[in-house]
């Protein structure tokens, strides 16, 4: 069984973790085409190589980021989400009328 190094709890069996998908920026939900939004929601790049992913240590519900090589199955680095997300996110605009029918 693989070991994943949780930035909060240290190295633990990977059965204690769940995968949360690729780290990818959310496009402005009030702008952009339906197709682009659908791609953001449903598509993963499934990169062969180094990927940046969300992982959660289930017993402590701690979310963090892992960089992993999907070809060699090596976990390269894990770190708290705050390294990437260090500013308060605001959603300014309300979607326009006739929303999302393009």
């Amino acid at each position, binding site marked *: *069984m*693989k*070991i994943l190094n949780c930035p909060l709890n240290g190295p633990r069996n990977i059965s204690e973790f*769940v995968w*949360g998908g690729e780290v990818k920026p959310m496009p402005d*939900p*009030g702008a952009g085409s*339906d197709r682009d*939004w*659908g791609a953001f*929601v*449903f598509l993963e790049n499934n990169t062969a190589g180094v990927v940046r992913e*969300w992982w*959660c240590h*289930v017993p402590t*519900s*701690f*979310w963090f980021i892992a960089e992993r090589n999907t070809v060699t*199955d090596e976990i390269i680095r894990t770190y708290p*989400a*705050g390294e990437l*997300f*260090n*500013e*308060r*996110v605001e*959603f*300014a*605009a*309300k*979607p326009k009328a*006739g*929303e*999302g*029918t393009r």
Partner: protein
Amino acid sequence: MTGMNRLPAPAGSLLDRSKTIAFQFEGRTYEGFAGDTVASALAANDVWILSRSFKYHRPRGILTMAGLDANTLVQIGDEPNVLADRRAISEGMIVEGQNYSGSLEHDSETWIEMFGRFLPPGFYYKAFYRPKGAWKFWEPFIRNRAGLGKVNTAAHHGYYDKEYLFADVAVIGGGPAGVAAALQAADAGAEVIVVDDGAQLGGSLTYARFDSNGRSGRALAEEAAQAVAARSNIRVLSGAVCTGNFADGWLAVIRGNRMYKLRAKASVIASGALEQPAVFRNNDLPGVMLGSAAQRLIRHYGVRPGREAVVVTANADGYAVAADLVAAGLAVNAIVDLRPDAQPSPHVTAAQQLDLRIITGSAAVEAVPTLGKRGISAALVAALNDDGTADAAAESIPCDLLCMSVGYTSLAHLLHHVGAEFAYNDSTHMYEPASLPAHLFAAGSVAGAHDLDAVVAEGRRAGSAAAHDAGFGAGAEPPAPIERGDRHHTHRWPIFPHKRGRDFVDFDEDLQVKDLVHGAADGYDDIELLKRYTTVGMGPSQGKHSAVAAVRILAKEMGRDLQDMKVTTQRPPFVPEKFGHMAGRVFEPGRRTAMHHRHIELGAKFMPAGLWWRPAYYGKPADRETAIRDEVLGVRNNVGLIDVSTLGGLDVRGPDAAEFLNRMYTFTYTKLAVGRSRYVLMTDQAGAVIDDGVACRFHDEHFYVTATTGGVDGVYRTMLFWNAQWRLNVDVANVTAAYAGVNIAGPRSREVLQKLCTDTDLSPAAFPYLGVRLATVAGVPCRLLRVGFVGELGYEIHMPAHYGEHVWDAIMEAGKPLGIRPFGVEAQRVLRLEKGHIIIGQDTDGLTHPYEADMAWAIAKGKPFFVGQRSIAIQNGKGLTRKLVGFTLTDASAPPPEECHLVVRGADIVGRVTSAVRSPVLGKVVGLAYVAPDQAEPGKSFDIKVGRGRVIQAQVIPIPFFDPENKRQEM
């Protein structure tokens, strides 16, 4: 007497001759000594047939004595497929052979062998695919013949468990290489665990011959065991098998009824090599065994393996076997050496000094069976040509034991499991490890060393390297490498096909040379394809004796070079594991509420809800319908009490609490007044409904949010996921387990609660519907929520879990004069359905968006964002494909449809029923169903296909079904 074949000590190092054990085999009683296996005890009593083969029901006996073949699978009581050469005998044990009709000695189905030529590889594919339906006819016959042993389906679950172990260095194999590695690693300071399948450390030292008098091996083994015992940082697991090597140094080890999960920083695999059978006619019969098996019988179990022997060999080890047989009192009638000349060796010299007959450049090409193939009477020997083929047999040499010592294959499974690469060595004729993954080391014969000095030296080097890898012995000089010496022990072509067959390559599956030749001719020219087509290597021993031979045959058939070929991938487990080992102890964690014992006293019938156990209803199963009905009427007409402790509870605190809920849920919470609650509906990024509950505002910066029983952990995790990105100033705590909860509901609930809650004005004006209060109930500080899932005046009371039983008792006591009765989940489901309230996960599925569920009212229109908002908008913009509606049946006497009964329009499926019940207060069936959008208006009708294809008509009616103006909950 424990057997006519028993040899005196020092033979039989594993035996305790002071203890005699009686057991039964095939209905007869035999005696053995403590330390005997089933196979050794029977051999001592001159019983050599242990089972019959899978396909042809041929008699089979001892092959390896190492627990690594399928010839010795026996049935012990309820337990099928026990390895007779590993399982120790115990007093009164009842053992039977497998795969026979009638008796093991006289199998009435040996006739099947006569039809062997009609059973070529691919037989099923070729024979049963036409005419259509042929497989259905033949299947029962084939199923009856397939499989090994008998399973007692009524057998109880035995006791199995698991243990976690940790080591700096794990050493798999306690032979000379493994012991050397363990000592070296331990002396570097590492904590070492040695896993060894033997009863005593030493591996081949305990059974093979290393010197002229055959005693040095045992002395070395004892020395090794003492050296290991003298080190406190070495732990030895004897009689244990490592069955799998997994990522990051995780090793599965099975001993008895326990599975160890061993995590090691570095591992040394010193699992040794396995002798390989020669392939010739009747090489599978009892009496034909590996040379090492005969040595194990002698030295471990003090069993004389026969009376007259022939040894067929291609290395010095065969000569050592011959010397051991002579020492055990056998007549060795010939040593048949495949090589043109015996290479000089002390063992060869010893055999010459014993005046044994040595026939070089020849092979045993057939074993002559005795009557009924119960054993052998002679070996037919033929000269070999330069190309490795055999001439016609020239001589018959009498023997009842034919030992095979023609070569080895690495027991490299644990290296294969983690992706080690192997390459064929054209000089040693073996597949040897070419590259190993990190933190993994190999030593001894598994890595290609064979001479004892080289094995020990390489063991030391591996132990040193592993300790260093695990962080020990920095700066220490690794032991020096030495020459490997004679490495030519394996013959390149110990295969002598016979024109009349029975030259077995795979004993498990009864596969002969011609079966593999036919498979290759049928076009299966890759070993992985040939394996699956012919089933070679797919039996219980997984190709341990057949995989390399199969590759040799395929290479020859295809005219290819072995260096360009690989053996089939070896995957875990190394030996068969039982489901019991996987399951271990049966842990099914269950959560009980604080009031669980009160429910038991009240006669509750429980049902699972996630991990929780909740009362379904109170009463006997026979009275289920009336119990539920009375509980429903109790709430509608009087007052009822339900345990809602399992509901999820989340405390959301901080300056951004309201903003956070705005983003997580579809509604708006920024303007929600303190002391009020509001429905929450959560959707995922795709816009699907995933949870609901209520948000109670107890302070500007504090919301208490409820979630569904099964959904709360996911909701909590989702909230933390999003805020890991948003960085809002908010703290979320999952307080589900901290609070017990009850819902007191019914027109007289206020009357009851008033007796217990004196610090809060419960009047409708002071504490209206959807209000929330911090109040004292029965002396306990509680959170009071006026919510109405069941559609009556009611209060949810959430109290610290430790006071759950106290508050429950106080309410039941206070309600006694009014006839309060507890109600369960079943009644609650009826009550909520009468109100048309949906249950997430029952009335919604993984695709349901709020518009489909008719919950547009729960979506705030002016918010900049909530999770799922854009996706919902997109889906709604495309138009609905289905809608959830309330319905009743046009024919009032029709039975209620069941959940998932289909809503049909002609031949098309347009939806399904999600909930339906006959309402006691409405006197009719009401339910929820997905229907086509054009059927969703009240008054329209649609068809439901119920059991046995019957179609009934339903009519859309408005929700709520009961108390449409919601007056009762607002009293």
